[in-house]
């Protein structure tokens, strides 16, 4: 029998000024060598739970703590954080703020030096842990020179170097692009399987958690609602939806098929299992799927030419060529999705639309006017830009001031400012918070404050730059629903995102970028089915698309399916494909 690394007995906790319990009567045991996944909506208490494992909660934050947590037999209340740090390695969400040294080797050495590990031993461990996270040979590099995925792997290496009994990772991939997230997941999985490292990881990445975790714990409002295998947790779709959690697309596809009356013995949660199940389901019936996809039904009619880009090149002052002869036309009323790996040039491109960057060469016209002739502030009233992190766009003391800020700059009358601010706050459901400090609101609400502030200017075009990064499923959907509402009002919407699975219900056209060039510019269905192009920029299509491809392969006929519902629509009650 394996020994327990984590033993949690009836733990409840509240922060010094929090009204209720943030963690409530949690009991859990995690065995040595286990990969434990922690899921739950934003505000469920996942970060607090992770911080309780190395004593930061309650030793650093204070507050009221009940029950007992023992890590490798050490009570987290009786042992200082510096002792617990030897047993619990922590990796946090933000790759920027958790790296503190000026070189890779110093980053790894820092905790070891504090733990008084002899210099010779530190020098022995550095190459070993770097090899484990595939960063070998990068000892002398500055952490700022690493990509997001590499930074998180360095944070993992630094945590590993202390040879902890437990590695805790709190949302380690939420700020990363798909390739970075994949690097982190595969590294953690390898550590778990090959070195037997015990892992506790919290994450919103449903597909990956289903794939890698041994057990999943569902935390909601501080309570551990369910602890079970990924198969059981991710196939309980009503429970996941009730808790605003995203369901792996494989599971939601088979759940939708089941709801159509097709008998499904077990809802698969992993892609390979899903492909196998879909093969069996299709083979039960020879009839081909007659699903008709009307590709033009949800595409807006092209309006006037809004943004005209021709042979656009951009070279940054350090010599990096970020755009290579990009040509693109965007018309009024379009909903355009721009996708691609980090460094593909997506943000560089849209920053040109706002005149935050000027073309090194090429043509860029906004509404027929050369962008160089327009100022940032002039453009701002026509093109609203909502950047990734809402906190970097909040600088007023109240929600009301934040939303009315732009209107004052644009010299509207007092009455107009009052009307527009009120209208904008109302449309975002923020009027009741108008006197609150924006930073005192939860993250999802802060994003809405920024959107309200932009909408108050009545822009014709709205650019959302990675709006769903760092948001949970509910928060992401809320923002995307706003984007759809704006699109229906006739606005032009441009969204940059890595989260392809969220977009089929919203976007019409997809621009796939890679290494500063446009690889593909096509209607969403065509773009999502071009898996080769997507893979070339390190994006993988949603699982529903891959299941559709599997049906196409078996039937030897093209099934251009995008969503779980579309895949489910291929099946009927009689037990197979229609």
């Amino acid at each position, binding site marked *: 029998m394996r020994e327990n690394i984590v033993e949690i007995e009836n733990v409840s906790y509240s922060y010094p000024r929090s009204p209720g319990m943030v963690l409530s009567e949690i009991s859990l045991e995690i065995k040595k060598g286990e990969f434990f996944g922690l899921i739950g909506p934003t505000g469920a208490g996942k970060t607090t739970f992770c911080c309780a494992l*190395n004593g*930061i909660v309650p030793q*650093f934050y204070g507050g009221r703590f009940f029950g007992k947590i023992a890590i490798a037999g050490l009570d987290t209340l009786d042992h*200082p*954080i*510096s*002792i617990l*740090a*030897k047993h*619990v390695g*922590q990796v*946090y969400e*933000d790759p*920027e*703020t*958790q790296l*503190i*040294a*000026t*070189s890779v*080797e*110093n980053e790894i050495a*820092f*905790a*070891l*030096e*504090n*733990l*008084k*590990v*002899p*210099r010779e031993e*530190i020098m022995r461990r550095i190459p070993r842990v770097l090899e484990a996270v595939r960063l070998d040979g990068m000892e002398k590099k*500055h*952490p*700022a020179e690493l990509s997001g995925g590499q930074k998180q792997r360095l944070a993992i290496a*630094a945590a590993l170097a202390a040879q902890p009994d437990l590695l805790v990772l709190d949302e380690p991939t939420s700020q990363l692009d798909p390739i970075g997230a994949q690097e982190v997941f595969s590294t953690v999985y390898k550590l778990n399987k090959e070195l037997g490292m015990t892992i506790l990881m919290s994450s919103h990445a449903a597909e990956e958690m289903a794939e890698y975790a041994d057990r999943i714990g569902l935390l909601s409002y501080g309570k551990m609602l369910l602890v079970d295998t990924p198969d059981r947790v991710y196939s309980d779709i009503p429970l996941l939806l009730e808790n605003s959690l995203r369901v792996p697309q494989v599971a939601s596809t088979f759940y939708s098929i089941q709801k159509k009356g097709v008998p499904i013995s077990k809802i698969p949660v992993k892609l390979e299992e899903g492909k196998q199940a879909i093969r069996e389901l299709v083979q039960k019936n020879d009839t081909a799927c007659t699903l008709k996809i009307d590709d033009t039904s949800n595409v807006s009619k092209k309006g006037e030419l809004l943004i005209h880009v021709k042979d656009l090149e951009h070279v940054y002052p350090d010599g990096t060529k970020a755009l290579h002869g990009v040509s693109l036309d965007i018309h009024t009323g379009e909903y355009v999705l721009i996708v691609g790996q980090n460094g593909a040039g997506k943000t560089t491109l849209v920053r040109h639309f*706002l005149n*935050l960057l000027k073309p090194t060469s090429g043509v860029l016209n906004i509404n027929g006017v050369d962008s160089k002739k327009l*100022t*940032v*502030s*002039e453009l*701002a*009233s026509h093109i*609203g*830009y909502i*950047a990734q992190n809402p*906190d*970097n*766009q*909040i*600088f007023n003391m109240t929600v009301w001031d934040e939303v009315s800020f*732009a*209107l004052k*700059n*644009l010299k509207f009358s007092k009455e107009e400012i009052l009307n527009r601010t009120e209208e904008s706050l109302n449309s975002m459901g923020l009027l009741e918070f108008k006197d609150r400090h924006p*930073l005192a609101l939860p993250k999802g609400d802060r994003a809405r404050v920024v959107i309200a*502030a932009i909408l108050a*200017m009545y822009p014709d075009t709205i650019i959302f730059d990675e709006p769903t990064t760092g948001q949970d499923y509910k928060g992401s959907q809320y923002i995307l629903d706003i984007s759809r509402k704006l699109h229906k009002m006739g606005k032009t919407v441009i969204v940059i995102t890595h989260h392809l699975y969220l977009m089929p219900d919203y976007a019409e056209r997809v621009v796939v970028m890679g290494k500063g060039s446009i690889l593909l510019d096509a209607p969403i269905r065509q773009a999502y089915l071009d898996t080769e192009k997507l893979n070339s920029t390190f994006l993988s299509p949603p699982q529903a698309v891959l299941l559709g491809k599997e049906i196409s392969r078996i039937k030897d006929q093209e099934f251009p399916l995008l969503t779980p519902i579309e895949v489910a629509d291929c099946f009927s009650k009689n037990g197979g494909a229609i």
Partner: protein
Amino acid sequence: MSMKFQTVERDSIFTRLDFRPKIYMMLVLTVVALIWESPVVQLSLAFLILLACFLSGVKMKFIRTILLIMVPFYVLLLFTHGFFNISQVKTLTGREELTILFSIPQNWFLIGGLNFSLEGFWYGINTIFKTLTIVLVVPLVIFTTDLDNIIVGMVRAKVPYKLAFIFSATLRFFPLLFSEIGMIIQAQRLRGLAMEKMNIIQRVSVYAKVAVPLILGAMVQSQQLEIVLQSKAFSGDPDRTYLHESILSKLDYFVLIFFTVFLIAAFVSWAVWGFGAFSGPTDSILF
């Protein structure tokens, strides 16, 4: 967002030196700059430091920014000494009357009748280059040292480890703060703030408003940093091991000896022959 600390990219004698002799050099040069009051000598010293900054690869853009910040202060210094520093300059030069360069007409309100003296002007020049030496020696020492070496060097120089770490963390966060200022102002421009149409006073008020979100952001970040540090077993205890050894080389010893000799020589020549004194032998070419 780059968190990279501003270090020089060029290899020079300054990058090869240990942090301790460099700190010693900084102290000696500061003391000497404080002792000397001759504009000629101060100008030469500031010029030498500027040259050293240039040769060691400190970015000229950075020095230009420092100079721009200091200009209003320097103009004020020059006027104050030129108009008002009369008794001190008389004592230092041993003159009964100062050379008047120009006077304010008697009928001017409040300041009518004030005289601007040549000697006061040169004393002002001395203070300007004195402060410039003290200011410029800092990037010369800091930017040519890796942050890790700063910490190890300070700890070896018996500075408490926690203090050394706070010092280095502050330096590390400076570029981050600047990038945040840039981001906040960019967000304001994207909400119609027309910086390009603003006068200097309006621009200053924009920067002043940035302070609140900046401080709030810095507080959040410092709490995050503290959590990260705690989870890396950091307690501020100087009793820890070090990956990098800080051993003084021959060059380091040479620099230590050189600046000790320089300090003694500067002091003795100043005390005995008036070298570097205001209106002393080095200023004979001026007045």
